């Protein structure tokens, strides 16, 4: 058995192999802990996601799910006094090292937030600015933008008004635009922080299917409160919980196992809806 | 876009155009950073009367900086303009900021000539004073105040706070509002000297800085009494400001009486220099003391010194 997997098992106390032996996971954290000033928000999180799979993170509010997500692309750098310890590897490369460039990292690890946050610019410039930023040639720009917007199924809706303000789009459209914006940078990993919770049911469906289909090209970590959604799309799953005021993982592994036969009694209660 | 905002836009566009026109209208806006003789000429073209100015008298040239008293500055600036018209290669910059600035700048060499509206003090012994004009100081009251004359004793009593109501002096039943000048002012010094007062014993209700402030204060307050420059008073009375001057002793505060030396409370307006004078300084001071500038002195409501 892979020594890494053993480690993660022994920490989380959960069962089941996270990865096929011999295949290095795309994204992996070991003994990850995050502190804000003197307050510890997250401790001892060891998880791994194989290439082209979806890890769904569930758990009650305030147990460090978003903090975990933010540390994966080092958005935690933006918070003063925030310290991240442990190890995070993306494609076997340690990203907490000082020589890892966070900007490049964030191109490789895209992120979509709970609330759609398009820039107050035109639809087109929302994609063009990050592309330009990452050195995309002007000649490729238009085709990449079209491809990305098409990928999220928005092309037919906006192709005639690419210069319209992005904020004039509906909520679902805005969220898809944000996904397109991230996809245009060809990320290897995508982080979704409750991407559907601010959307209407129809848009939820569209976005959910979109995320499920993205599995073909990127590795995905998604935080969601919607257990049914997690069941539908996840390959891997992790349950976060707050113990002594500190967030940690109480159950993790393949989705079928976590949702089908959780070991931890609290996780079991939460997943069956008998909690809170 | 609403029609209203369209209108606004049009109006503001017009305004910007007008502004640019205004700038362009100032003829000869010179290229910045380039000292061109063209620029000079165009600026003097703006002055009517240039053409009938006398021909240059001597080949004087150079630059002279004059700084100091804000009372003297407008007069000095006018003298400088006329002097520049006669000597095309001379440039005189007049700067203001108070008598002390003039004296400090002359001592440090920053200015060729300093302006002072007061006598030099013992600290300033090394400097030479050149009297260019005289200014009288007179008491003023509100136009409606029935008290026409005040004896020196009455003035002293008022300023010492021993008389606190105009009725004691034959006026209306109004409390006297005593207006005094700020410490260091030349008018204060000559006023104190003349009446033998000490600034510490004056019971002032209001303290003012400049002459104009004193005049406005009295014009707006029927029971106030102040002392200001006679020139300023004449100008204001001509304009119909609600003030009236009060004779000192039996001498009416008029420019004639100041000129003839009859009027007792006066201060000199001085040019101050340090050490040897160069040609330009000498020429300008001679010019400033010559009859050629009498009209300028009178236009500023000052009195040419007795020559």
């Amino acid at each position: 058995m892979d020594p890494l997997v053993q480690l993660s098992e022994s920490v989380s106390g959960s069962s089941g192999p996270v990865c096929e032996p011999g295949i290095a996971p795309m994204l992996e954290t070991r003994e990850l802990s995050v502190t804000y000033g003197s307050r510890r928000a997250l401790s001892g999180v060891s998880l791994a996601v194989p290439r082209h799979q979806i890890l769904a993170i569930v758990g009650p509010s305030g147990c460090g799910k978003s903090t975990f997500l933010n540390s994966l692309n080092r958005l935690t750098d933006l918070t003063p006094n925030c310290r991240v310890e442990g190890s995070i590897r993306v494609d076997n490369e340690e990203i907490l090292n000082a020589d890892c460039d966070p900007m490049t990292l964030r191109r490789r690890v895209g992120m979509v937030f709970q609330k759609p946050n398009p820039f107050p610019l035109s639809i087109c410039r929302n994609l063009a600015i990050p592309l330009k930023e990452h050195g995309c040639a002007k000649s490729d720009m238009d085709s990449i933008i079209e491809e990305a917007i098409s990928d999220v199924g928005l092309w037919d809706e906006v192709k005639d008004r690419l210069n319209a303000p992005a904020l004039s789009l509906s909520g679902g459209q805005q969220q898809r635009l944000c996904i397109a914006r991230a996809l245009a940078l060809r990320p290897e990993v995508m982080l979704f922080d409750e991407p559907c919770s601010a959307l209407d049911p129809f848009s939820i469906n569209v976005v959910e299917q979109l995320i499920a289909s993205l599995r073909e090209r990127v590795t995905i970590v998604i935080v969601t409160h919607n257990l049914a959604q997690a069941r539908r799309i996840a390959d891997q799953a992790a349950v976060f919980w707050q113990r002594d005021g500190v967030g940690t993982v109480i159950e993790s592994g393949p989705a079928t196992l976590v949702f089908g036969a959780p070991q931890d009694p609290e996780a079991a209660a939460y997943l069956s809806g008998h909690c809170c | 876009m609403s029609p209203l905002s369209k209108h606004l836009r049009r109006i503001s566009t017009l305004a910007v155009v007008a502004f640019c026109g205004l700038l362009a209208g100032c003829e000869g806006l010179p290229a910045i950073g380039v000292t061109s003789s063209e620029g000079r000429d165009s600026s003097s073209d703006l002055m009517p009367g240039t053409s009938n100015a006398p021909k240059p008298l001597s080949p004087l040239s150079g630059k002279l900086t004059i700084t100091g008293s804000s009372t003297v500055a407008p007069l000095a600036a006018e003298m400088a303009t006329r002097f520049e018209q006669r000597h095309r290669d001379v440039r005189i910059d007049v700067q203001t900021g108070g008598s002390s600035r003039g004296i400090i700048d002359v001592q440090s060499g920053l200015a060729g000539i300093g302006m002072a509206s007061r006598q030099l003090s013992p600290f300033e012994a090394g400097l030479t004073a050149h009297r260019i004009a005289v200014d009288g100081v007179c008491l003023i009251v509100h136009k409606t105040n029935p008290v026409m004359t005040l004896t020196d004793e009455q003035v002293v009593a008022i300023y010492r706070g021993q008389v606190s109501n105009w009725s004691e002096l034959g006026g209306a039943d109004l409390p006297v509002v005593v207006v005094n000048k700020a410490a260091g002012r030349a008018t204060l010094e000559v006023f104190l000297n003349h009446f033998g007062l000490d600034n510490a014993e004056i019971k002032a209700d209001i303290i003012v800085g400049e002459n104009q402030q004193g005049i406005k204060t009295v014009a707006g307050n029927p029971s106030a009494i102040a002392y200001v420059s006679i020139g300023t008073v004449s100008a204001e009375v001509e304009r119909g400001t609600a003030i009236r001057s009060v004779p000192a002793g039996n001498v009416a505060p008029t420019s004639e009486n100041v000129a003839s030396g009859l009027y007792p409370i006066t201060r000199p307006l001085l040019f101050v220099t340090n050490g040897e004078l160069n040609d330009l300084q000498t020429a300008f001071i001679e010019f400033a003391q010559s009859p050629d500038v009498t009209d300028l002195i009178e236009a500023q409501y000052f009195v040419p010194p007795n020559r």
Partner: protein
Amino acid sequence: MSPISLRLSILSRRTVDLIAGRWFCATAVLAASIVLLILVFVVREASSALSDIGVVRFLTDDTWRPTAGAKASYGIIPMLAGSLFVTSGAVIVAGVPGVLSALLIRFYAPPFLATIHRRVIELLAGVPSVVFGFWGLVVLVPIINRLHPPGQSLLAGILILSLMILPTIALTAEAALRGVPASYSSAAAALGMGRWATIWNVSLPVARRGILAGFLLAATRAIGETMAVVMVCGNIVQVPDSLFAPVRTVTANIAMEMGDAQAEHRSALFLTGLALMVLVALFLIAAGGPRRSEVS
């Protein structure tokens, strides 16, 4: 999917970031150093008064009579008090209509009138203080004189100064209110909150920091104001016992006497300027205290 070429751009971006950071830091250092330069200058000019007269006399003498030779006295406490009274009064008087003006522009007035009102306030910001002073002397002081002579008084100073700092308060408050995300107020509206409830519970608290910064700016502007104060305050060196009593502020004193001051007197005037700056610095440190605890 074609990969995007990256390496080159990252280096240049990093350089640009680095250069920009340096530049911004340099401007901040420059901005901070100006006041230090001014402090050095003022201290240098005040040094002879500091050594010859001494700080103690400035704090203990009961009046300001610097030209009286042997009997000279250099008390600045009454003038510091005058500055404080005039400034705090002006901030109080201008604060309410200032913020209300901002509310009107932002929430209550139709856009057209709001724009006009803004323009009026912006113009008010550009009236030279000597014009304010003259107007106060000609219009306001006689009115106050009728209520209670001599008219030139603490009250006149407060009123004129409040007119002068009102634009600062109103425009900064308006900018701060405009910075409140629209989603906040729509969220409040969605909760069934009325317009006022939204303003009071959401907009004002969110914009609080900006509004307070505007007040601070206005207060510092008021304490440094000179010309208008000279005209309307009466300039008697005393701790005022009523609103109708004349006062002299530190800045008015400097403006009135600096022009004709010699030697020791001039140095003493710089020392009063220094005292004012020290007072403001103390005030800023005191005001900065709670902000620090808020952050940590």
